[in-house]
């Protein structure tokens, strides 16, 4: 397929091989979780019956799409970026009337029994293209509020739609694009504020509200004390400190409880509480029912998943139990282990050493993408590459943190490895577009 020397020249070999390596790891991991003694392995791999067989076919299909992408002119992507984005938004909107309710989400359109489409996943690629296209415009300047707002809208729009479709996990992925904007000049203060906000939210959950208010006041007073000289010279600093302090207390006192009570679903709130290790007391019967319903659908609550997943990974030890020897993963102690908790299979089967090797694939992959991004002449390509890196990074970090109990259980897959045709195809398309753009890195695309 990609053997034509003409097309292969200029394609980044390291990235391509790492991609193939990761996909194969994924297929083997899925094989390890679903294989049971006495199965006809060869037959199953070639048929569409088992999950690993399906994943293999998805992989082949991804390579086909990749070939098509590599054979496409790179200008095609810049030219049609906005068009794709529009198509994506329309698909997202179509979800509302046509969605089918599976597994507690309303973001999936089903075509018959065999094929289902989750536009919010596809839309990640389109948003990435659209954002790159917007950033690459000559008059885009991230120091200006107008540019910031437009870029933010491009990104947050699909995310909002995703939240409306009860797919909070994937909605969060879109926020990873802020890393791209940061690279392209978005003031660092936005990231810092965002990060501080996250810390504040966690602190709100962990600490008693009054105690936190006291701590915030203490910090404010200390700041005033240390900046007393500057304040004498510039009175507004004091005003800023008071405003920030007020905002913090306001968030802690009103915004976070509001979000938890009205924006997030009770079961999601419970998972966040589970992650930080606190008990969530549902505020009314409806909330309790919601938690129970979602727990029943997921077979067990998130807390159970995480505990079993930690046991699976932890029991791997230094060298692991070996492929097909993991008792945790083979006997279905970890729910969702083909999809969201696939890392357990690797952690249990290959231990700390195996996990390190596996993680290093990802690290090299991500750093390679950044290196590729930085060697682009055109802003579009660079921006797109950073988009790919950010999205992959977010997926990898959150997914693995989820399995080892560092992040709440939000169902997002591990790129290239988790079972799922659409996610594999989406990620593959992203990588192949990147490879295609990188091939023409000397061109200036707009």
């Amino acid at each position, binding site marked *: 397929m990609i053997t034509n020397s003409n097309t292969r020249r200029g394609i980044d070999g390291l990235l391509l091989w790492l991609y193939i390596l990761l996909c194969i790891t994924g297929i083997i991991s899925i094989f390890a979780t679903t294989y049971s*003694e006495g199965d006809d392995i060869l037959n199953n791999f070639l048929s569409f019956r088992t999950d690993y067989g399906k994943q293999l076919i998805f992989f082949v299909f991804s390579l086909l799409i990749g070939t098509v992408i590599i054979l496409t002119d790179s200008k095609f992507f810049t030219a049609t970026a906005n068009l794709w984005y529009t198509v994506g938004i329309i698909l997202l909107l179509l979800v509302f009337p046509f969605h089918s309710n599976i597994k507690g989400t309303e973001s999936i359109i089903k075509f018959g029994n065999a094929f289902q489409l989750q536009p919010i996943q596809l839309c990640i690629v389109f948003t990435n293209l659209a954002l790159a296209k917007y*950033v690459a415009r*000559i008059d*885009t*300047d991230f120091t200006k509020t107008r540019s910031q707002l437009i870029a933010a809208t491009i990104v947050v729009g699909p995310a909002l739609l995703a939240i409306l479709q009860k797919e909070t996990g994937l909605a969060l992925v879109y926020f990873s694009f802020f*890393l791209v904007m*940061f*690279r*392209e*000049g978005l003031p660092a203060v936005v990231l810092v504020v965002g990060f501080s906000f996250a810390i504040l939210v966690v602190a709100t959950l962990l600490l008693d509200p009054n105690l936190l208010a006291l701590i915030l006041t203490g910090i404010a007073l200390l700041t005033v004390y240390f900046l007393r000289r500057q304040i004498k010279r510039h009175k507004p600093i004091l005003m800023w400190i008071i405003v920030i302090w007020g905002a913090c207390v306001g968030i802690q006192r009103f915004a976070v409880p509001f979000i938890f009570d009205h924006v997030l679903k009770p079961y999601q709130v419970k998972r966040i509480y589970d992650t930080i290790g606190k008990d969530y007391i549902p505020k009314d019967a409806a909330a309790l029912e919601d938690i129970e319903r979602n727990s029943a659908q997921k077979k067990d609550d998130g807390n159970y998943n995480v505990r*079993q997943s*930690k*046991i*699976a*990974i*932890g*029991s*791997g*030890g*230094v060298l692991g139990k070996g492929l097909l020897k993991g*008792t*945790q993963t083979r*006997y*279905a*102690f970890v729910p969702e282990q083909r999809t969201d908790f696939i890392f357990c299979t690797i*952690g*249990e089967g290959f*231990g*700390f050493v195996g*996990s*390190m090797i596996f*993680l290093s694939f*990802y*690290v090299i992959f*991500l*750093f390679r993408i*950044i290196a590729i*991004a*930085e060697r682009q002449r055109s*802003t579009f390509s*660079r921006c797109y590459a*950073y988009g790919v*890196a950010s999205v992959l*990074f977010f997926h990898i*970090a959150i997914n*693995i*943190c989820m399995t*080892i*109990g*560092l992040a709440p259980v939000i169902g997002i897959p591990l790129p290239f490895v988790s079972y799922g045709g659409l996610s594999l195809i989406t990620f593959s398309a992203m990588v192949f577009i990147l490879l295609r753009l990188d091939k023409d890195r000397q061109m200036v695309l707009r």
Partner: protein
Amino acid sequence: MPAFNQSRQNIIRLIFGITFLIIVARLFILQVASDKYRLQALDNAVYRKVVYPDRGIIFDRNQKAILNNTIIYDLTVTPYEVRKVDTAFLCGILSIDTAEFRNRMISAIIKNGRYRPSVFEGLLSIELQAKLEENIWRFPGFTLIERPIRNYIYNAGAHLLGDIGEVDTGIIRRSNYFYQMGDFVGRSGLEQYYESVLMGKRGIQNLIKDNRNRLQGSWEDGKYDTAAVTGRNLYTYLDIELQQLAEKLMANKVGSVVAIEPQTGGILTMVSGPSFDPNDLTGSARRQKYADLVLDVSGPLMNRATRGLYEPGSTFKPLGGLVALDLGVITANYGVGCGGAYYGCAKVVRCEHSNPGHAANLRLALANSCNSYFCQIYRMSVDNSKDKGVKKGYTHWKDYMNAFGWGQKLGVDLPNELSGNIPDTTEYNKDYRGSWNSCTNLTLGIGQDKMQVTPVQLANAMCIIANKGYYYTPHFVERIENETAKDTILNGFRDKHTALTHIADADYEVIHAGMQDVVEHGTARSAKIPGINICAKTGTSEKYTILDGKRIKLPNNSMFVCFAPREDPKIAIAVVVENAGFGSTWAAPIASILIEKYLTDSIRVERQKDVERIASTNLMPTYLKRKQFIADSTRAYFYFNLRKDSSYIRKYLRGYSAVPAGKGKGLPILVKEKVMNPTNKNDEYQPEDEISKNLAAR
């Protein structure tokens, strides 16, 4: 736009790097630094199945198996596999109703969960098992599981062999959690005493289970499995034919028979009456049968051979004579002129004989069982001038008794043996405020007063006399299969106790001669067997009981001790038949028949009808009926009180469960069960005064 944000790529790299470092650190903590998760995974996935070995077999002295194992079936159910079961049909076979079926399903789910089998109906009878086996295909989810139980081949030896039962929390705690809930252990008799030998070694099978506790096969190909080791067999001294004969003779009698081989201390026969069929307590009817036995006031579960306390009466006299001879206070020619009673103390002790010369020497006194003579020599022994004072003299005398094995536990290889009673001086000091003398406890000399012994102690004393001084602790087990140096359990039975060998053989000969005279022309002529020189002593002791608030005299206990043949003792026997009259009437023929059977291996034809006559005689004390009535009434009254609360009656009738019918959650509390097996101690037999108090309260 100008690309002047080059430096920011490093910040992004830094963010990526730090995140991955956090993940690596966390993985290090999870996988390398802590063992916790590995153990939890094992706990999750590996099910340690305990494989129970067959218990050891118990053989008698002729290598006949008397207690072995057989198979019985349990009906088990795996609730989640139960689909489209013809419930009515199954209920019909098991003769239960559908409500009971539901209850059992719920308790199965509570006990073991939906995915693991639990016992639905245990210990099926053979007919039931056959019927179920035929139809089991109709009941998916139900399976017949075999379970080994104990089989008492000769239906004999219930008390000495003992039984096994499920462990309770006390046993588990005492065993330092070696036993687990559901294990079976010996609960009485040899089964309990030799539990460690008979149980064998439990095997462990490591099986893999999945998230629903379904077993998936062996773990690591059974690398860490240990095989179960069958329990080792016990070879006993018991003669099962003799045992059966003795049980037959003791049918419908209260009392005990103990026969010991003097040279070895091996117990040939041990019977306690009333007895029961040990096989009743192994099968499906165990609960009902056990309850019947527990509630029977005649106490069939009690082993009277080691736990029955009796005044030895005249059977003590050979010992009294030996002590006096050894102390040197009398010689064999010492005589007493008895005129029908002993007048040496304020208290007059009557004697059966009044003709002059019946106590002219020790041999005659023993043959005629003269009370005056033995009262006199008891006083002489205790008031011995060497000992300076009655208290020291008495202590000396008591040491002799202890050396005979009386007043202390012999250490028989059965659990819960009683020590009997040879009172200490402190006991008399307390009762008589320190002022007492040989007249106070004069009747100790004729085996009365506070003296109490168990039948096995009586038989052991006969062994000592037969052996002329030495004995081995009476025991059943001769050897253990594949015995090694680690098996210390039998060591105590191989020590020769020689405390009394210092008594001169001539002294023993005198006693032997007197005891032989008892059979030849004394009180036990009915025990005579031609060609065998039996040495024996009859005994008769008075017995009282309290019934309906009155102390009433019961018929005397009939006692008999003997050994035979005199020249080379092969068997020593003690027989006690409660409330049966003179020792010579019932106890002597029983012992004699046993001797004949053991020594000649047959019973003469003319003796056969004696056997049948004794076996068919019912000597159960009549007062037992009254006692049973009182005990049953007390229990009935207790239940009546429970049922006075009408709400309780309703709950009882519908098999009260804490959760209303229709909801599958929660633990049903089956009050019915509680009522049938009350744990309240009030349910036990109450003394009479409490009954009257209860009746008055009504």
